């Protein structure tokens, strides 16, 4: 038996644009993986550990943790898709995704949830995923949670913003719990969304990717898969381009020959890759059924000092409404720095704004997520990607309820005023004012301040070739050897932070590819 050692204790062996001298690179592998986030990293590791020759193509740059400055605007530009400016087509919702080696796992808040039972049951009964049960996925959840050091937040990881959430929830009799996170000896810097500078967050960058590389996987950064290649109904590889991340100049064509291709580019880029490749879409479902957990940053002013940027970025959450029958949403105590506070709500213009920001240390923030419907569509308009997604009329009552309950928690915790997440100034100081303002809300473009951290859907998994893009094991219905392993395969949104669902499901798909099961 060969003992494999970690190739490096710090950093990764990555081929970057600056390393490439040739104009064309041709490679052969058993498996080529597109994307290096939660899905791609797991697939790459499991395949490489099984002795497969693996190549990983990542469109974004390689930024080691020494490059994480803990300055969010800088990191948005460096580590996120479209420099942090990826928007829905209406332009009123930022859709944040990592675009770097490690993908969104590098820039997320490290919150972990198993897929709620009710969601797995829904996938089973309504979408035909009869094998994807809680029992079948249980060993995969257990495995990835162990690998990623998932644990429940301890008391020192419940920062002031989350203590306030707990206080409000307790006063209202709402169920609330510490969040679980994939961190190891968290430094409590509050800078999760800028990448963890001290490698405490157990992202793919310091877990599955170095492990895959230790088993021989080759990782190419700055390299975007342009098309999936296929012949006679079988995948044959990927044609990619390596570009200088600073100038955008094309450095090389990269052609990878492989009989197994796994798209783990995420719920926006995976369908775009299929559409560019003009394959895998006999169902007509590629890019459809997009959902994204529309999120708001609720803010409230308190007499006490909070310093919302201090401590673990996410501490505890209200699960009272998690079940769809009770609302299908959660409220997370979440930190925020001055940029987020400055943009999350509207305190007024001029002197009112200055007064509000002067009290930034007294501002508490809360993140909301809800189980939205799969009403969006990802497609190309010419060569421009389109993220066609707006809050549906069916979801609008839920959005209003989310805002109302979040504000109630703040008021119950003693907030002097709560800013509702609207474009115009909307603040409430009492339950009566809250009810009045909630009634006035309308579902119109550019009415709310929203952000999505969780793109999902678009490459739906299911047994029916007419209604889904990939089968119950992640393989394309149309192209043999072509798999998808990322949040795009979710038949519905999952209510909660999805990274562990992606990790576990990708681990499950890896086993299916290898023909084994846990």
């Amino acid at each position, binding site marked *: 038996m060969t003992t*494999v*050692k*970690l190739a*490096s*204790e*710090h*950093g990764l062996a990555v081929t970057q644009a600056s390393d490439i001298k040739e104009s064309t690179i041709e490679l052969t592998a058993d498996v080529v993986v597109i994307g290096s986030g939660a899905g791609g990293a797991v697939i790459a590791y499991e395949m490489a550990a099984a002795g497969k020759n693996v190549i990983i193509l990542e469109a974004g740059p390689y930024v080691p943790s*020494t490059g994480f400055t*803990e*300055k*969010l*605007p*800088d990191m948005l530009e460096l580590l996120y898709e*479209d*420099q942090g*400016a990826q928007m829905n*087509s*209406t*332009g*009123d919702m930022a859709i944040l995704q990592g675009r770097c080696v490690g993908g969104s796992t590098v820039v997320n808040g490290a919150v972990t949830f198993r897929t709620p039972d009710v969601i797995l049951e829904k996938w089973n009964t309504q979408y035909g995923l009869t094998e994807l049960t809680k029992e079948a996925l249980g060993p995969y959840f257990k495995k990835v949670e*162990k*690998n990623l050091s998932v644990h429940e937040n301890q008391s020192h990881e419940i920062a002031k913003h989350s203590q306030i959430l707990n206080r409000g929830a307790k006063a209202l009799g709402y169920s609330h719990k510490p969040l679980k996170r994939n961190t*190891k000896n968290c*430094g409590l810097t509050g*800078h999760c969304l800028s990448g963890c*500078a*001290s*490698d*405490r967050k157990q992202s793919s960058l*310091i*877990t599955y990717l170095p*492990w895959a590389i230790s088993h021989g996987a080759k990782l190419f950064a700055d390299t975007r898969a342009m098309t999936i290649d296929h012949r006679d109904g079988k995948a044959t590889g990927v044609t990619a381009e390596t570009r200088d991340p600073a100038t955008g100049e094309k450095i090389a064509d990269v052609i990878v020959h492989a009989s197994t291709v796994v798209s783990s580019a995420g719920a926006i880029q995976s369908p775009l890759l299929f559409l560019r490749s003009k394959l895998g879409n006999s169902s007509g479902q590629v890019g459809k059924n997009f959902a994204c957990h529309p999120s708001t940053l609720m803010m409230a002013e308190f007499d006490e000092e909070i*310093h919302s*940027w*201090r401590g673990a970025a996410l501490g505890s959450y209200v699960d009272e409404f998690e079940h769809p029958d009770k609302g299908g949403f959660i409220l997370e105590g979440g930190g925020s720095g*001055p*940029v987020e506070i*400055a*943009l999350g709500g509207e305190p*007024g*213009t*001029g*002197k009112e*704004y*200055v*007064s509000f*920001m*002067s009290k*930034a*240390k007294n501002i508490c923030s809360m993140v909301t997520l809800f189980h939205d419907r799969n009403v969006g569509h990802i497609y190309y308009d010419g060569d*421009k990607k389109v993220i*066609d997604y*707006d809050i549906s009329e069916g979801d609008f009552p839920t959005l209003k309820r989310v805002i109302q309950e979040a504000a109630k928690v703040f008021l119950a915790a003693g907030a002097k005023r709560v800013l509702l997440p609207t*474009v*115009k*100034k909307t603040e409430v100081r009492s339950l009566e004012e809250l009810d009045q303002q909630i009634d006035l809300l309308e579902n*119109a*473009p*550019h*009415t709310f301040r929203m952000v999505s951290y969780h793109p999902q859907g678009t490459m739906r998994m299911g047994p029916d070739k007419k209604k889904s893009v990939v089968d119950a094991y992640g393989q394309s219905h149309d192209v043999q050897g072509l798999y998808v392993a990322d949040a795009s395969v979710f038949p519905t949104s999952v209510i909660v932070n999805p990274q562990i669902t992606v990790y576990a499901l990708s681990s499950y798909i890896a086993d299916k590819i290898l023909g084994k099961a846990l």
Partner: protein
Amino acid sequence: MAMAQRVTTQCSSAVNVSAEPAVQALNRRSFLKAGLILGAGISTGLSLGGCSSPEGTLPDGIQILSAKHIPMFEKLISVLLPVEGSILTPPDIVPVIANIDAMLGVMHASTREDVLVLFDLFEYSSIFSTQLSRFSQLDNEDARIHIEACQSSSLFIQRAVVTAMKKFIYIGYWRDEKTWAPIEFDGPVSKQWNLPSLGNAPLPAA
């Protein structure tokens, strides 16, 4: 308050007359393209009306913005960040405009083009409300009233444009570390706290 009502009413009615049919016909997806159309329309109106204003001086190091943008941003900074008498850092010692220029510099070219159109659209958005004055030519109180009127407008494109302008100013200001100490924001802390890197996680046990 009377002024606010006057501006709001004039803003709404004038835009209703000139642009509402076009806006109603808009697909939500293409609001920036709509901005382009509206911007072109307003520009045409401007040339007919003979309204113009002197351009600003381009600060050193600016690469994307042009001189015409400077007075608009200076007005926005003046109206949005009136910090006199507060604890906040005076914006005249923060390179807000240079920061915005740098943000534009890292955007995709097509996004940048859209945003530059948006800047023009905003500059001209006050034409109908205040006797053919560009935003940069308004006095500060009228400028504040115009911003709030747009933010409460029934036309989503006005809400969209003014929200975007505020975002640019606020990010341009708050990303500078000189703004942090007054509000006790700690900024980067890992080096300050000597937090060592834990490095790569060990390989999982087989």
